[in-house]
């Protein structure tokens, strides 16, 4: 029995496992993928990414306190690829998911080569892909900045791994470049250089200590360019966001501990919980003690995966919570994309801990039947833990149920169907609104109109999903028209534009009682 399980399962089985694990996140997040919706910051980035020189004008402009030229260029490119405004939600959703898949594959590849085990590589893919910790980033394009950053962190690590494996310093060039690009996708990308250098330092015997600085230098160079290009506007943005109001070191530690327990501990089991600062600190210390005790027991030092993983947990949380230490942790629980990079770190750390002593990067052994069985069991358990949580998130994202709905839809299965119906209805309305908006743009160009002229005539224009807090811009900023100029004949305008610019209210769900108010009045965006 034992010898049969230790036999190689074959390349096809390994390949098939990899393909299944790369597809599984799409199945997990299908409710979002099948109902693409742009929301929140997406609109701000899209408004800045219209045709012509517009993307380049905003390239170094901070968004909140992030200067993200690469992300802006990527958004602009995706808009071009979409062709029509109505296709943009779909293209952004697919692109975001593609980032997740690439990230999962890159992490699996890195782990497989570091541990020399195909099983661990596939296990890392399963852990990262089948986890609701990445749900905010995987289902919202703007939060997907963190996926892009994570991918470039992994590219940094893969390049440094290759440089060690092949004993060629040439591979440090892509590592340098990836570490430089990462902060330009999202500020948390500064960790790319740090983890790249930590990894090289761990293997310094093979690379020479001096060259370990290459990724860090890439990141520092990138920060230099950002600071030089954004200049005063960056300082103003940081100051406006309240990030510079004073760092509270104790809160960085307690916020980090709470995030470790809640987001990396319980959320990785598909559960939600709320902890208190000292409680989390004690639990985190217990975890650290357990890890150190296991190291002492096995008489080994931390391996490269553990070192890199730990850095990737501590550095992004340290940075995020240093800038947010003015807020209590209760106010930060909803910022789920802060957990993306620490989640990658958790996977690296966890697999490293499980693998124990690793000799260094090498070509992974073939997948055995035992490894296949282990990966299969892990994946099934992960699905059992996270599928109910995904369904709960879908339910929670839907508008609050009216009292009659609470009576008619008492079980989660029905509530989920309601949530999917409402999400699909909203997604369709948004797509139609964007298509009409594009036709309005074409008409505007044909008549030599500007956005201001339309605004003066028809007031502020919104589409479903438009954030209520975003008052400086409106949906007209999404179309390719000049800001000012042109005059509008009122009679002609009244004939042409109202059907294109008017807001289409949500359909009343057929199951609603007559007494229910629809659409719900509360929410952060236009229903």
């Amino acid at each position, binding site marked *: 029995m034992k010898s049969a399980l230790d036999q190689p399962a074959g390349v096809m089985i390994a390949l098939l496992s990899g393909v299944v694990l790369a597809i599984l996140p799409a199945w997990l997040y299908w409710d979002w993928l099948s109902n693409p919706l742009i929301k929140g910051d997406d609109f701000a980035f899209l408004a800045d990414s219209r045709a012509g020189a517009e993307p380049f004008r905003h390239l170094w402009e901070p968004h909140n306190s992030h200067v993200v030229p690469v992300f802006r260029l990527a958004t602009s490119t995706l808009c071009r690829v979409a062709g029509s405004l109505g296709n943009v939600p779909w293209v952004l959703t697919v692109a975001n998911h593609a980032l997740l898949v690439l990230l999962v594959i890159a992490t699996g590849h890195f782990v497989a080569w570091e541990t020399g085990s195909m099983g661990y590589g596939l296990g890392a893919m399963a852990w990262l892909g089948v986890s609701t910790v990445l749900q905010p980033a995987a289902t919202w394009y703007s939060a997907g900045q963190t996926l892009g950053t994570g991918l470039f962190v992994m590219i940094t690590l893969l390049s440094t791994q290759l440089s060690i494996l092949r004993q060629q310093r040439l591979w440090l060039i892509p590592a340098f470049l990836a570490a430089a690009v990462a902060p330009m996708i999202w500020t948390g990308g500064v960790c790319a250089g740090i983890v790249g250098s930590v990894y090289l330092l761990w293997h310094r015997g093979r690379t020479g200590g001096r060259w370990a600085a290459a990724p860090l230098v890439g990141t520092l160079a990138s920060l230099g360019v950002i600071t030089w290009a954004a200049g005063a506007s960056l300082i103003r943005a940081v100051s406006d966001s309240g990030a510079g109001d004073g760092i509270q070191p104790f809160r960085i530690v307690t916020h980090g501990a709470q995030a470790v327990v809640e987001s990396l501990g*319980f959320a990785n089991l*598909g559960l*939600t919980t709320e902890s208190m600062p*000292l*409680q989390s600190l004690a*639990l985190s210390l*217990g975890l650290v003690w357990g890890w150190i005790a296991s190291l002492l027991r096995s008489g080994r030092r931390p391996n490269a995966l553990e070192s890199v993983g730990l850095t990737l947990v501590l550095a992004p949380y340290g940075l995020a919570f240093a800038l947010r230490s003015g807020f209590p942790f209760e106010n930060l629980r909803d910022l789920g994309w802060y957990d993306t990079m620490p989640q990658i770190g958790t996977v690296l750390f966890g697999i490293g801990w499980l693998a124990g002593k690793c000799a260094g990067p090498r070509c992974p052994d073939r997948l055995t039947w035992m490894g296949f069985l282990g990966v299969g069991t892990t994946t099934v358990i992960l699905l*059992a833990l996270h599928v109910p949580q995904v369904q709960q998130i879908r339910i929670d994202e839907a508008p609050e149920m009216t009292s009659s709905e609470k009576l008619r839809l008492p079980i*989660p299965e029905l509530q989920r169907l309601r949530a999917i119906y409402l999400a699909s209805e909203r997604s369709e309305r948004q797509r139609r609104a964007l298509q009409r908006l594009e036709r309005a743009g074409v008409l505007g160009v044909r008549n030599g109109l500007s956005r201001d002229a339309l605004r003066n005539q028809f007031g502020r224009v919104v589409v479903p999903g438009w954030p209520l807090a975003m008052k400086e811009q409106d949906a007209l900023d999404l179309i390719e028209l000049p800001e000012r100029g042109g005059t509008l004949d009122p009679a002609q305008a009244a004939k042409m534009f109202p059907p294109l610019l008017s807001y289409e209210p949500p359909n009343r769900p057929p199951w609603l009682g007559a007494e229910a108010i629809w659409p719900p009045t509360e929410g952060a965006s236009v229903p």
Partner: protein
Amino acid sequence: MSDVKFATKRRWINGPVGRGGQAAILAFFLLLPGWMFREALVDYRLHSDDFEYLAGSRTPARAVANLFRPHNTHIVPAWRVLTATLVQVAGVLPRLQETLAVATYAALVILMILVGVLVGREFGRLGLGLAALIATGTTSVLFSSGTWYSSGQTVWAAIGIVGMLVLLQAWRICGGSWRLVAGVGLAWMAGGFWTIGHAAGPVGFVYLWMHGRRRAAFAPLMGTIAAVAIAWTLGGRHIDARISFHGRSEREAASPLAGLTHTLQAIPEQLGAENLGLETETTVLQGAGLCALIAVVWLLSIRAEGGPNPLEAAGGALIVIAYFVEWTFRGYLPFSSLRGIVPWYDTIPHVGLALFGTGWIGRMTRDHPSGLTRGGAVGLLAFSIGLAVVHQSRIESLLMDGVPQPGEGEPVLPPTREFRLLRARYLWPEYHRVQRLDLARLQRAEGVGRRLSIGRDTIHEVFGRIEVLELPSVYDALGLLDLPETGMLRDPAQVRAALGEVFQPSVPPRIPGGEAQPGLPGMNQPPDD
């Protein structure tokens, strides 16, 4: 030189802790749960089933009469004897509060010691025994059964189960059939405190079977079968399951499938998360996934050794049997309706977890020294303090839930955790004080009743239901009076004149300040006040 210093330090860390030191840290570990539960214990209030059990055991004669009378679905003669003893120890009604508080905490201490002894002797390691002792008591999972007398039935049942295991272990090591007989006796007694205590027999069977004592393994099992048979014969026909099971018979209420799925959810939620001082909610699928995860990790760790050790087997059996039986009979309700309603259901499975966990750890740390080293003592101190910190916030939450919601006219406090906690810390002693005054009035009534020879039936005719603060509406405080059923004085006017003032119901306490304004108690008063 530095090597010498390091070696000296290492020698000190690995040095043994003396008897005095051992006694001191043992005292610390045993007192720590008391400190964690201090507010609920110091200001103990009789509540819910306390009244019924006390009434049923108010006098030795009543205790004997009720010995096998079921309470809901539980036939608990040992518990009734214990309650009668405590009533005699208290002497007067106002002293019942502290007597029950001391008894409740003492039970927890006894249970901790027994678990420590069992684990320590099983592995021949004092440190591991102390770790088990700490893990058993230093937890918010036992808040209910460690601070409420009637909920503490489960602790006494657990004492019976673990006590039996200690005796079976002693018999296995030292021989002497009296130990085996005494163990069987304890298995019997465990079920006499609370029905799930009957798990003692199967658990004792598993323990001895895993030690290879196959024939003797049947002894505790037989003990439990005999205990169940006797209890059922003497009291079974009086069981009215409809009270416990919301109008259902046992057959209508029981659902083994729900017993299984509820168990799968209870293990990660109540033994897992709550033992980390956190609360979470699972679905059945998640519960199954988490249990499978634990099972896979455990099975992988024992793979090389061919099977579980006796402590793991006994602990695991205790968890599964206790939860499965409990939840099977609550299977008519979904798990979501049972969360937090019956926290005492977790006591025996928690003890099972302590045995299972330390059995597992003991297997993985065989090379550790048998005595307690200074380093080990520091580690245990850190472990116990860490647990106290981890559970503090949940205990505070339970304390806040332990006082009534703000009533009409009560000052509105800001809705923060800190203010809610302040309110709870103010109200716990107030409720304790007012209830104590009520009990003192009852004691006075008893004196007057005896002097004038008034029977309980006349009091009921004249005053109807007698109230005490926090007495559930289904009970009557009349039962707490040590008076004969009928007396000589039967004139209602005379009885009212004698006892009318004493039976005036008390006013439930509330935080001071009548205005519905935000602020601390007294904050809205002028500074001169």
